[in-house]
């Protein structure tokens, strides 16, 4: 087997450094006591500021959690049912529905944000956490659906046929056969949905209402209006949390697949 050459190694190193250095700089400057980029000594004051003096930030954090959990649970239920239907049954309009589920993945987020805002305005629904929830369920459904379908496609429909031949009812089927085998896909879909919801900025930007800022919106206003390097400390908390959970969830996911 031929080894990759120097050129691809060089590009890989470049890209990796390119991806990591800016974050490393944030980490370092979060410990800087000065407001500016000039190093003026080690300090934890921005962390103190973050944990004890950032009420609105934590308010938006909780909003993010509420929206992420509620929208991903609803999207997972709807998306899983949809995946089962699309994967194992055929019926009229199947192609159309499949195409429809493709839309939120492929359309630029701003289109979804704009059109759903216009829609809420048209039907006279006030913007609030609830409208964010509705929007998040909408863009999360397709991702759950595709993740669960990827798992279902690995299974032979003959298992289901066999269960039917043995006299299983549809409910039995669903609870005892389909859900257990698709569980790793469902959990992966749920986690993906939570992630996308926590991460979403563009769509939320359009549908957020009074007091319903989510964490990304708050970060956005910190960048725009910001006066304080607290955002550096927040970045580090997010970077470290992300790294830890990326590592542990990878293990979680592979152990789920092995079951």
């Amino acid at each position, binding site marked *: 087997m031929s080894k990759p050459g120097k050129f691809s190694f060089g*590009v890989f190193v470049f890209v990796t450094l390119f991806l990591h250095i800016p974050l490393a700089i944030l980490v370092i400057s979060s410990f800087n006591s000065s407001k500016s980029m000039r190093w003026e000594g080690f300090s934890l004051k921005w962390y103190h500021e973050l944990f004890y003096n950032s009420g609105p930030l934590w308010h938006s954090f909780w909003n993010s959690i509420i929206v992420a959990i509620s929208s991903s649970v609803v999207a997972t239920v709807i998306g899983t049912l949809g995946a089962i239907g699309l994967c194992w049954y055929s019926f009229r309009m199947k192609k159309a529905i499949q195409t429809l589920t493709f839309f939120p993945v492929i359309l630029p987020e701003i289109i979804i944000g704009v059109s759903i805002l216009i829609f809420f305005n048209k039907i006279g629904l006030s913007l609030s956490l609830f409208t964010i929830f509705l929007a998040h369920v909408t863009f999360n459904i397709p991702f759950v659906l595709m993740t669960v379908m990827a798992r279902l496609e690995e299974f032979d429909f003959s298992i289901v046929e066999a269960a039917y031949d043995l006299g299983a009812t549809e409910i039995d089927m669903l609870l005892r056969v389909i859900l257990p085998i698709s569980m790793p896909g469902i959990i992966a879909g749920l986690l993906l949905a939570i992630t996308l919801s926590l991460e979403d900025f563009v769509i939320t930007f359009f549908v957020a209402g009074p007091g319903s800022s989510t964490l990304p919106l708050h970060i956005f206003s910190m960048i725009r209006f910001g006066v304080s390097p607290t955002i550096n400390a927040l970045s580090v908390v997010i970077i470290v949390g992300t790294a830890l959970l990326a590592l542990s969830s990878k293990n979680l996911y592979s152990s789920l697949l092995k079951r």
Partner: protein
Amino acid sequence: MRKNYGPIYVGPVAFWLCAFLSVPLLITLSYSFLAKGLYGGVEPHFSLAAYRSLFNTAVLKVLLNTIIIAVLSTALMVGLALPTAYYIARSSQKNLLLMLIIIPFWTNFLIRIYAWITILGSNGLLNSFLMGVGLTDGPIQFLYNRGAIILVIVYTTIPFAIFPLYSTIEKFDFSLIEAAMDLGASKTKALWKIMIPNIRSGITTAVLFTFIPTFGNFAVPKLVGGTSSWMLGNLIERELNITRNWPLASSMSVVLTFVTMLAVLFFMRSQNKKEL
């Protein structure tokens, strides 16, 4: 014949996406053909004014700028991602190397933009360094131009190019390359002539996954763009939120959707060709 439960399973998805996706898109489409109200909103009579205002030079310039940025960033991303994905796929430490790409990617998108603002700003690291070594007397303005937008877009979006390329290269049978080399081809030539055609689907996915989000981007130009680097996404947001010309915002959204659909069709066609 047992009962077909398909529609029952699919019902909730179909309902939800119709209600919160199709209907909003159709309303947006219909708004683009209405007249605008004085203080925003729409007047309920047919008008092509919104489409006419798309053809003023200002809007066309923004469209051109958006295309330039999207094409350049996509080319840069795919160009960098191809060797990177190749290296990862050929390495014995695939998972570890993938992790290296993934971790920065899953850090909040806005934080990643912010990281570049701290580097490129007048008081940022880059300027401090340049002034420290005496390469420049005063700070240089790196932010608020097209270059900064492209840099930050590449930074935030490049994993979308790396992942699909990686997954196709990983499946590619490299004994073909060795066979070609045994027959006297140089390695570069073998890779170019044999691997590239075989991973075409990965390349089109990478192009699509980077081009579409770049074309519709609005957060990056909003945060690091300047007076002459408007993108379509910014213009849509401005027409929606500031000028409150909703028909115009809608017609621009229709254009953006149209471009996206074209890109997707192009993608599907090249996928089909591969299968033939």
